[in-house]
């Protein structure tokens, strides 16, 4: 290293702090060549948009989950050994319960800050799944999953599923009445799986339900296996983010070939680092003000009692709702074997729905045939069919989700339970269709409006009387920067079927043409410069 020879001469003028920093940086770099990474990554540019922070919320709430969860592990006992509760919560004193439940109560009532950390952990988990969901919706509706980001979409999808699994396993650990009933439902669902269901349940619970093993097993999943996969997947997710660089919305000066925004050092680091503390602080504030999962009011698990209005944490709701919406009588016997269609069908619908979410990018890429890289995020209106499909999917999910609260909806709005279920059943099918067509119309309407504004300007609100007595409202033209945001989007046409070299039209080609027609038949083309010119001549 040549710099070592020069240093003494320079160091004379430098302060102690600078000299130390220099020494430390040199020490580390000589052993890690970290300067290369700093050079590569340190000034990378991150584009700015409020919706880009949703993924950050997910990341930061995950860190909060790790920190608060680690605290909890020091006190929680993941065992179902029966103990007599002797802690300071009087109503449950002397009651037999598992050590898991008793240690959860001790955490809540005998450890200072224990209740706070439990609530931080639970609220952060709810926020984690919610922000992942919103982040996915942002990616979907802006088409940010297109090449080269399809793999990262898949990894993100895996993270979403893992987050739900983490939520469910964690929720079941205290071994309270509510979570025990959740496990009972899981047991019932597993038993409904043809052929192997009984055995899977038997192996999962280490014998008959509930057994004495499940909490310990879920604990290993919750704090070891799932987090390990999660951390690894988040690492790859971030790595691909750096390799692909972030998408940006269309704007003046922004092209598919550049990234416009703030550099990691210092602005993004300060913003993102600060945002982490804001997220942490907000979760802390919520946890200090709002109670969550008060297991002591439910009591220890017992297979016999249950309270009305039981429902899982919000992100499991869609699965619970799917169970509720099955019409009566869906179970058959064939050659002595029992087919529980009331369980099999929901168990199939959920993976199919999730599978469509996971593989949507590949379906759309097949339809468009577009093999180019896309770094400009679409405005949802400029991809009307995609946006409409998304709205239909959200409606489908929302109906399943709402169905999980059918009893609460019924009591709150004084409806009959049967009516609410029937309503949800109808809306589960009809709702997505309505949402699809409404969204598509709205998108095309908005596109037309954009086109109108780009060509003829916007209404200024200024009414002018012409010499002939005619009144007109003066339209003001957009400046070119504003206009650019309205006109710079991509446009696709339906695929024309053409015979291949052998004069044949393959089935694949026909299917693609049909899908492409469905996608791009209704289209509003972007404004061209000729159109702008001619519209200016008119005025």
């Amino acid at each position, binding site marked *: 290293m040549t710099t070592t020879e020069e240093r003494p001469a320079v160091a004379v003028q430098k302060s102690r702090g600078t000299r130390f920093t220099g020494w430390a940086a040199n020490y580390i770099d000589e052993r890690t060549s970290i300067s290369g990474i700093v050079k590569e990554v340190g000034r*990378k*540019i991150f584009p700015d948009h409020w919706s880009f922070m949703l993924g950050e919320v997910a990341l930061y709430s995950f860190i909060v989950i790790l920190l608060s969860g680690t605290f909890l592990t020091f006190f929680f006992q993941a065992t179902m050994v029966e103990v007599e509760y002797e802690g*300071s919560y*009087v109503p449950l004193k002397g009651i037999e319960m598992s050590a898991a439940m008793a240690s959860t109560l001790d955490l809540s009532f*005998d450890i200072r*800050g224990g209740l*706070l950390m439990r609530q931080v952990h639970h609220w952060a988990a709810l926020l984690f799944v919610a922000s992942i969901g919103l982040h996915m919706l942002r990616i979907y509706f802006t088409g940010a999953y297109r090449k080269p980001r399809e793999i990262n979409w898949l990894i993100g999808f895996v993270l979403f599923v893992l987050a739900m699994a983490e939520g469910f396993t964690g929720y079941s650990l205290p071994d309270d009445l509510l979570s025990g009933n959740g496990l009972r*439902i899981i*047991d019932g669902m597993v*038993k*409904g799986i*043809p052929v*192997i*269901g*009984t055995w899977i*349940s038997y192996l999962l619970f*280490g*014998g*008959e339900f509930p057994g004495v093993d499940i909490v310990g097993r879920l604990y290993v999943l919750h704090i070891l296996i799932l987090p390990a996969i999660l951390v690894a997947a988040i690492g790859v997710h971030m790595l691909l983010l750096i390799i692909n660089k972030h998408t940006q919305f269309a704007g*003046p*000066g*922004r092209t*598919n*070939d*550049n*990234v*416009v*925004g*703030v550099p990691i050092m210092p602005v993004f680091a*300060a913003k993102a680092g*600060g*945002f982490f503390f*804001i*997220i942490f*602080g907000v979760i*802390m504030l919520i946890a200090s*003000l709002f109670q969550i999962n008060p297991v002591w009011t439910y009591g220890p698990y*017992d*297979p*016999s009692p249950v309270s009305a209005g039981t429902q899982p944490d919000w992100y499991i709701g869609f699965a619970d709702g799917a*169970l509720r919406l099955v019409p*009566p009588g869906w*179970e058959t*016997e064939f050659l002595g074997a*029992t087919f529980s269609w009331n*369980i099999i069908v929901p168990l199939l619908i959920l993976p199919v729905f999730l599978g469509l979410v996971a593989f949507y990018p590949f379906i759309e890429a097949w339809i468009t*045939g577009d093999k*180019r*890289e*896309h770094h400009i995020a679409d405005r949802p209106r400029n991809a009307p069919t995609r946006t409409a499909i998304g709205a239909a999917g959200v409606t489908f999910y929302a109906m399943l989700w709402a169905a999980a609260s059918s*009893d609460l909806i019924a009591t709150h709005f004084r409806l009959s*339970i049967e009516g609410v*279920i029937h309503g949800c059943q109808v809306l589960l099918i009809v709702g997505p269709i309505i949402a699809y067509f409404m969204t598509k119309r709205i998108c095309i309407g908005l596109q037309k409006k954009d086109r109108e504004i780009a060509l003829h300007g916007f209404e200024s609100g200024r009414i002018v009387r012409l010499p002939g007595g005619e009144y007109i409202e003066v339209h003001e033209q957009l400046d070119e920067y504003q206009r*650019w945001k309205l006109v710079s989007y*991509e*446009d696709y*046409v339906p695929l024309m079927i053409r015979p*291949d070299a052998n004069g044949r039209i393959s089935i694949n*080609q026909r299917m*693609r043409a049909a899908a492409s027609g469905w996608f791009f038949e209704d289209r509003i083309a972007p404004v061209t410069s000729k159109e702008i010119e001619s519209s200016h001549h008119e005025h």
Partner: protein
Amino acid sequence: MANDHDGTPDSSIVGTTVEKHGNNPPHAGTAVVVSDRIQNPGFEPYRPRVSDLDPAVEKAQERRVSALFFVSIIGSIAAVVVYILFPIIPGDMESVRLNNLLLGISIALGLLAIGIGAVHWSKALMDGHDMVEQRHGTRGTDATRAKAVEVFTLGNKESGFGRRTLIRNTLIGALVVSPVPAIALFRDLAPAEDPVPLLKHTLWAEGVRLTRDPSGTPIKASDVTLGSAFHVIPEGLDESEHKLEEKAKAAVLVMRLKPEDLNVSAGREDWNYEGIIAYSKICTHVGCPVALYEKQTHHLLCPCHQSQFDITQEAAVIFGPAKRPLPQLPITVDAEGYLVAKSDFTEPVGPSFWERKL
């Protein structure tokens, strides 16, 4: 794919610059190429912030940021003070609440002030100009790819992986089989015995008394008045080795209806005692306790998925996802007038499973 549309990649929209290397530029699919599309106007001029223009404002912002960081220090110290000054007094829920509230708020203050300070610093004081970075195509350059291919070619050549197919194929076979022991090792997650017989039997048997849940006191037939409902467990459940497992199968709901309100099917005539009937409390859908009894309509409601059972129709399903009626427990009274079971359930209780009828 090459002939599926009439366009060529359009440099003004997307793609080409970032993907310039390679002989074949990527295909644009059915994207439309607009020859006279509007040109990107380039960057908007930078609009300076107040703190860029007025040194006094800049100074004020600086003070604000450091004040926030100072507040954070106060919050974090306050958390420790609260931890000591507001301990939990055993049995006093108010002290738990206060500890939770004050501790949380002071930690939140410590965190939020750092966060708001840092974000404010970045927004008001750090360089506000947008910067531009060029993208490069994600794929490696042709030279890099050629090198990568060469690595694999050399590896293949030097090892003979492709040439020595016997070695290759047996290796693949060995790798595929190697995880099998790991799967086998998990067999003992559950005991060796077959679960199916377990699922078909409960603690109920001839002469077992019906007792109250959870006290375990026996129930006299005369205690069960018209319109009442009892949550019931078999006598001796508490002494059972697998208490919760047995309870999860044996929990029963006892009700009394007017005998004429019951529609008793053939073979079940003597399963009730003067209108006192006992049904499994475990839902035939996924096993939640069917705990809600509606006295007026004689309906049982499962709170988990809203299956409803009509007690007057031998607990037939009248609404919801469940298919089968709740199994009925045949009961009678013993010499002392206590309710007892006449036998175990005549069918498996709880959720359906594959081998239920096998």
